[in-house]
């Protein structure tokens, strides 16, 4: 079976973003970018399914401008077989991303689509669920274990009260959580090989979908900063402060 892995180019998780002085957006000029960590976990899971003889082909897709080809190459170096870039300069919202991905699902007919549960920039946590709705597929979100068994996939999900396992008819959508796997590092020979793997570019406009924005970003402001407090010299002082100054314990 084919596995499709949509990936997103985002700010590197170690970077603390800054808001632009005019409050129009965050400042991403000269900021280190990377593959969204949850997408990296998605690629790893797909590659492991291939190594286990369950998946036959791993296709990765990213929607964005030319720069996201860098992340597609990373996914190819991690073991994906081929890549698709849907080219757009627009900052599309999750619904429009899901609509474009739906077209790729129709073309490629994957049995499994594995996405990240959220991107660490917009923190939306929507795209996988939206793609599931548009394609009529069941969804296993926040996955910490994925087991393909015949025409079903069992997904163990990280939920607020612990873990929940669901059985989904294939084809299905999975979104990854942190404990699903630990992604490998791309080895140099694989990085070289990735340069020769197929990467096709398709303009978003060619899909004939209405991609009008559904929201307007009015402003982006910095959060209220916390002031660093004091270092206390003993447990006694700490308890005294918590009781009498902060009044949070009695």
């Amino acid at each position, binding site marked *: 079976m084919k596995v499709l892995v949509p990936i997103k180019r985002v700010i590197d998780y170690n970077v603390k973003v800054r808001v632009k002085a005019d409050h129009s957006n*965050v400042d991403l000029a000269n900021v280190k970018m990377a593959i969204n960590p949850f997408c990296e976990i998605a690629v790893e899971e797909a590659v492991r399914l291939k190594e286990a003889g369950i998946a036959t082909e791993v296709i990765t897709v990213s929607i964005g401008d030319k720069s996201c080809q860098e992340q597609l190459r990373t996914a190819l170096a991690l073991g994906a077989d081929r890549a698709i870039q849907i080219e757009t300069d627009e900052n599309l919202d999750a619904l429009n991303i899901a609509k474009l991905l739906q077209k790729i699902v129709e073309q490629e007919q994957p049995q499994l689509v594995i996405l990240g549960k959220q991107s660490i920039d917009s923190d939306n946590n929507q795209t996988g669920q*939206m793609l599931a709705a548009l394609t009529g597929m069941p969804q296993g979100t926040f996955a910490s274990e994925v087991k393909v068994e015949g025409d079903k996939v069992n997904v163990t999900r990280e939920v607020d009260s612990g873990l929940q396992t669901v059985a989904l008819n294939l084809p299905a959508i999975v979104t990854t959580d942190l404990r699903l796997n630990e992604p490998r590092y791309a080895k140099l020979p694989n990085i070289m090989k990735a340069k020769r793997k197929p990467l096709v570019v398709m303009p978003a406009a060619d899909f004939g979908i209405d991609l009008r924005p559904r929201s*307007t970003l009015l402003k982006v402001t910095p959060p209220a900063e916390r002031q660093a407090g004091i270092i206390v010299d003993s447990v006694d002082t700490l308890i005294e402060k918590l009781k009498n100054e902060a009044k949070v314990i009695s």
Partner: protein
Amino acid sequence: MSILVFAEHDNSTLKADTLKTVAAAQAIGGDIHLLVAGSNCQAVAQEAAKTNGVSKVLVADNAAYEYQLAENISLLVTELAGDYDHILATALTTGKNFMPRVAALLDVAQISDIIAVESADTFVRPIYAGNAIATVQSLDSKKVITVRPTGFDAVAADGSAEIVSLDTVTDAGISAHVSDQLSESERPELGAADVVISGGRGMQNGDNFKLLEGIADKLGAAIGASRAAVDAGFVPNDMQVGQTGKIVAPDLYIAVGISGAIQHLAGMKDSKIIVAINKDAEAPIFQVADYGIVGDLFDVLPELEAKL
């Protein structure tokens, strides 16, 4: 205007965070209905009917909703959506799971994790792990929104709404529940506790979390953890506090053996008072802590427990 709020529950009790989501609905303004979808969930409906500001409780009580599978719940909510301008759910794992599905079925965007309401179409939400705050105006006719509980104060439970039973059953038939592995705890829930004490990689192993339990018992606290502590298998996943775990804002948050990565801070920096216990004086957690102790947690914790 009319607003539908999805009630979070476990078929026996209503989750307190629902009262915060209703507060967000009140900030939008309009006739507010609560949807209780579950199986054998009449007790929840009774409880939900007491929510201040709610005029109607819709109850969909059917085996198809027992585990609140996204495939089935999203069909139900989409079917009801015609009557409402806004549809709200709490940004917990159930709401996060099914709501984007509702949005896509309605062909509208979702506004995730709002922390404030500016007007009926304009909302405030954190992005980039809370390092930027975006104000977003929705252009869709229907608004599908998830609400971050720490952004709103719960409404009172002193109302008396009408209870209406729904008999539509929406079963997509493409997914099934297999099993649950739930964490049992006598302590308050992380999201609801006034005091949270969390351990990180510095705890070294799961057994050492006992050092936090004695203190938690004395303070009536919930116990949390960093991602590193969960990844290492010290404690289960539902204890993770942070950008990609649970978001908490208690009166008192005590971080023990946690360095203070931005992803962890994203989940707790709105706490009223933060205490950090860490042996490294340079640890970034001290930059957000009101009170810090630089010391070995294996010395500090027993002393703290004894003296509280």
